[in-house]
């Protein structure tokens, strides 16, 4: 388990860095990061299912500038890995019922940690305002490197702590016999669908013509569902 935790720590650190500091290529999005986390545990498919559920929730939390938002980069790989680890020893629904809320909780803690990081960066910058005013290239580069390093460490620590808690917990939860477990995935899917649909309305409703595009998409999606569930 120690190796798994360390690998997830490194993965979480790199993906957490992507959220803001470098390179913002969105490899930190849950659909990518949780799939990678699942792949670390040998089951990318289960990681993807967990990532899709988290991705539905992520639509509600856009990374606008100074606002506080959940940090998916360090949390999603742990959630994906937890889902895969649970599914490998027990039931997938119970593993997901733990992994998805745990991923949301870790993302929330990650968001809080980013605020702390920004305050740390501000303190570092404030101490060097004189050097910046003198046009010191060394100070400019130093602040960038210090910020990125602190972000890398922050994300890595969150992933390590989260993985240390999640992996043993999910292995215990997934093997419990739970008569209601058949409702776990529909419950998560309905919550995720509700949040994503609400978020889509919030993002797009003010743009002219989107209502008709949305209805056309809904007709296509519903038609395909009817066709594929026959």
């Amino acid at each position, binding site marked *: 388990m120690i190796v798994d935790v360390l690998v997830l720590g490194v993965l979480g650190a790199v993906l957490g860095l992507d959220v803001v500091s470098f390179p913002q290529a969105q490899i930190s999005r849950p*659909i990518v990061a949780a799939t990678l986390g699942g792949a670390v545990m040998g089951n990318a498919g289960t990681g993807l299912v967990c990532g899709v559920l988290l991705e539905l929730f992520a639509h509600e939390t856009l990374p606008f*500038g100074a606002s506080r938002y959940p940090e998916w980069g360090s949390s999603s790989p742990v959630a994906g890995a937890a889902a895969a680890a649970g599914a490998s020893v027990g039931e997938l629904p119970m593993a997901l019922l733990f992994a998805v809320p745990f991923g949301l909780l870790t993302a929330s803690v990650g968001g809080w940690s980013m605020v702390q990081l920004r305050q740390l*960066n501000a303190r570092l910058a404030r101490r060097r305002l004189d050097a910046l005013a003198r046009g010191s290239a060394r100070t400019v580069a130093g602040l960038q490197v210090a910020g990125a390093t602190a972000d890398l460490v922050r994300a890595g620590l969150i992933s390590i702590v989260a993985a240390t808690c999640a992996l043993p917990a999910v292995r215990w939860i997934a093997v419990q016999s739970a*008569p209601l477990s058949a*409702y776990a*995935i529909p419950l*998560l899917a309905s919550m995720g*669908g*509700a949040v994503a649909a609400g978020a889509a309305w919030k993002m*797009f409703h003010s743009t002219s013509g989107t209502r008709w595009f949305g209805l056309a998409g809904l007709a296509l999606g519903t038609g395909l569902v009817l066709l594929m569930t026959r």
Partner: protein
Amino acid sequence: MDDTTTAPLTRPASADVRLPQLPLATRVAMISRLFAVQASWNYEILIGNGIGFCVEPALRLLPGGVGGDAYRAALARQSQYFNAHPYLSSVAVGALVRAELEGQPAARIERFRTALCGPLGSVGDRLVWVGLLPTCSFSSLFLFGLGASPLVCVLVFLLWYNAGHIALRLWGLQMGWEKGLGVAAALGHPILRAGPVWLARAGTFLAGAAIPLTVMRLVDGGGLVRTGITLVTAAAGAGTLVLFHGRVEGWRLALLAGFAALVLFLLRHA
């Protein structure tokens, strides 16, 4: 040290004079630094230090080279408070480099810098965070709903998103460099004006198609009734969230409801 530091550019007096060429090494250094423009993001000067970091390779071309008076004064000016969308900060970087190398008056550059903050933030947010990102995400979810493999879902998302992301950074730098202090006109470019509208339409279409399919695949093997019940519940939940828009965050409710359900499911067994 970059050999270009010993060969300062000639300074055209205004934007209509022939555009000087930035050495390739300088351009590559600026582009690679743009990916880390937010590395020291903070509540004091926001991405100001990042802008200084990105323009620094070009400032070496100023008379006197690295450490010269012009270099130091320009770097100090460019490392002050600045705010913009990270991808569109490339527009500012290109334009500010041009203004510095043209030897524009410091006060004029500072006024220009201040004026750029608002538009580059709001345009970028609409184009990327509320346009490109959700559209790429919903397209990937659509593929998931159709049964695509993990590799396909992940690659389609990353390739589509990053094609837009990297193109925007490169376009912004070039546009800023070409227009200099006249870059405000570039913000009326069709990509920036109509792009958010069409991305929003594509995003809405894909959201409408992707959410039912995603839910269907998640309740895998549940059949039409189970999928239907889940979808109706999701629609009711979405309606409630829209109704309480701004007062309730769905993901926080889901976090609490998910853990509550987990405890309930485990207790039912006990």
